[in-house]
């Protein structure tokens, strides 16, 4: 995308960002992507926005959306959850075995599934805050524990989802699948949670700087644990959707690599991987971008392996554009930290650096550690 050696597009991007905000920029990218894709598909004499394609796009985005919304909350408080794929897999099994094909047990099944998922989230949160284990390791370990349990006990499909609940996976209102509506509802709830509640504010505070948050009287463990619980619950909902679509519990869905895709969606949505900045609205756009790419690749019949390559390139390129878009200068936490060292990192020295004065040199983020 933006070549690193030309500052002009970067500057243009930066001024665009200042007018639109990061989230606006993400939605702009989504709109551009949709337009380009529609043109590409139209050039081959087909139509991108047929009912089938739109439903496919929205269904894809609802599954990833559930996972990414939860992941956003966790990343906002500077944590991470690598266990969501495994939690979703476990949830399909729990839901299917609890419901056991009996329509009267649907409510029970949903409750048990979300309860189990919530408990896993609680464990994640407590390990991260109480034992102070790095979240990467804590949730990776939790994922491995669940994987071992699933591999040992569930070799094949388990349980059965009653038809009444399978409707959650297949019903749609014109082109809008019910699952997408649920996902959007959840996104709105998450936005309200972050913007309107005390804990929501605390999540941003803790993610921005846990020490400052603590000195301001926030018990920094509480938001982190809450975020982890909510993240696992959304992963449980994703598991319910998978179960409804498969009609049975399938323990092997964890191999889909959902956790990494969810993180990619969050980062694409403009949420800062180190916490404290971003939001759910951007994440929804990130999810839609990834789902659009998938759908377009399918319509254009791109080789599935090339698809992986393109996805990898696009995620890296998009994050690189965000990183260059100037968010290091956009929020200087402690401007009193003195002048930046002559060569604080690669930036000024390594590039040809035609006019170092035009680019605000990145400030060391004093509050980061």
């Amino acid at each position: 995308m933006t070549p690193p050696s030309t500052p002009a597009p970067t500057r243009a991007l930066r001024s665009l960002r200042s007018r639109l905000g990061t989230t606006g920029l993400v939605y702009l990218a989504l709109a551009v992507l949709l337009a380009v894709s529609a043109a590409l598909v139209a050039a081959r004499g087909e139509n991108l926005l047929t009912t089938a394609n739109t439903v496919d796009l929205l269904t894809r985005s609802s599954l990833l959306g559930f996972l990414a919304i939860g992941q956003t909350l966790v990343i906002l408080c500077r944590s991470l959850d690598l266990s969501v794929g495994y939690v979703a897999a476990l949830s399909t099994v729990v839901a299917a075995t609890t419901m056991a094909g009996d329509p009267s047990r649907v409510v029970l099944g949903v409750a048990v599934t979300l309860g189990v998922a919530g408990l896993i989230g609680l464990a994640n949160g407590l390990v991260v805050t109480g034992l102070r284990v790095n979240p990467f390791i804590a949730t990776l370990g939790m994922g491995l524990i669940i994987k071992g349990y699933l591999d040992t006990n569930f070799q094949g499909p388990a349980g059965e989802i009653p038809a009444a609940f399978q409707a959650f996976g297949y019903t749609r209102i014109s082109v809008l699948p019910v699952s997408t509506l649920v996902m959007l509802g959840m996104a709105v709830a998450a936005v309200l949670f972050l913007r309107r509640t005390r804990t929501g504010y605390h999540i941003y505070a803790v993610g921005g700087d846990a020490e400052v948050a603590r000195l301001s009287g926030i018990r920094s463990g509480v938001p982190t644990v809450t975020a982890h619980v909510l993240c696992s619950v959304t992963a449980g909902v994703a598991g319910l959707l998978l179960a409804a679509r498969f009609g049975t519990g399938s323990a092997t869905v964890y191999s889909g690599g959902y956790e990494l895709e969810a993180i990619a969606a969050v980062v694409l949505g403009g949420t800062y991987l180190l916490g404290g900045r971003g939001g759910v609205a951007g994440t929804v756009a990130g999810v839609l971008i990834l789902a659009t790419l998938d759908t377009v690749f399918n319509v254009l019949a791109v080789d599935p392996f090339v698809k992986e390559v393109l996805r990898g390139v696009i995620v890296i390129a998009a994050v690189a554009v965000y990183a260059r878009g100037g968010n290091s200068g956009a929020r200087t936490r402690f401007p009193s930290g003195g002048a930046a060292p002559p060569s604080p990192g690669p930036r000024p020295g390594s590039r040809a650096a035609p006019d170092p004065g035009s680019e605000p040199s990145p400030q060391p983020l004093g509050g980061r550690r």
Partner: protein
Amino acid sequence: MTPTPTQDTRGSGALAALAALGRGGTATVALLLALIFAGIATQNPSFFEGPPLMAFAQKAAPLVVLAIGQYLVIVSGEFDLSVGSLVGAQVVVAARLIDGREDMTLPVIGLMMLFGLAVGLVNGLVTTLLRVPSIITTLGTMLILFGAVRYWTGGAPTGALSESFRAFGRRGIEGVPVLGEIPWALLIALVLTVGAVLCMRSPFGRSLVATGDNDVAAAFSGVRVWRVRTMAFVGSSLMATVAAVLIGGYAGVTAQVGDGLEFTAITAVVLGGVVLGGGRGTVVAAVLGALTLEALFTLFTQFYLPSTFQPSVQGLIIIAAVAYAARRGDLRLPERLRRRPDHPTERSLGTSRR
């Protein structure tokens, strides 16, 4: 800025080792390894009679090599999630290019090294110059390698490795008394370990640890942070290439080769007490962590635990190991870090944005 002192005090008597136990680090993981070996010995007394031990060393060597590479990246404050995919890609590419011909062995190994170098450079430069968090960079590289290699081979690996290529992974110096056969893999791992220890004591190694500890301070003191970190990524990719040669020789060519190795390598490094986020831990500890993990897997097979259960135990162990390290941090960390008891993370991921 120096690495933790445990490495230097190692070997200066049992007393020093005992004293170091409370502090954790190299001595802790060494003790853990000894305990697991003792457990193996009670189950299978003939384990230490030479040939079985050499077989263990041969099996553990690739993970040791990968752990060294991952250590370089982790101690500089980054992650490398692409190594598993890289190992898989290298093995498949080698099989396709060699296709059973002996005379292709050395040129292809050379080509693999160049390919590893290129992947490492891309990882490093994208992370440092474009300021993409390393978890995203290497995740992207992982997807790219995964897709590209399968596209190139049409989904299933083709071709075959030559005998001389496979010799590195499964042959050795034969006819040695007592030990039977010293595997090449063990020798390669030993050489690389010694090389890594020397490297970590060189100015480059010191800069690497300093960068991981605090990259702003390192930059102020004249370290070229971007260059040091890029070198770490290159080192990691080269180590993954060596591991690919060993694994390809030992286990042969399949489409799944290398799957999940990145997390196993990170587990090994963390088990050695190396702190995610950088700046603390020694390369010897990372190597011991790899050996401990491999010994643990051996112990599982001896207890006839179902292999599907292994991930659960692996998960419990890494959580416990890091929780232990965090607890020990209470007693040892300098004032600067100790006064934030509620900080939920030691330091977070992908802190390359400077």
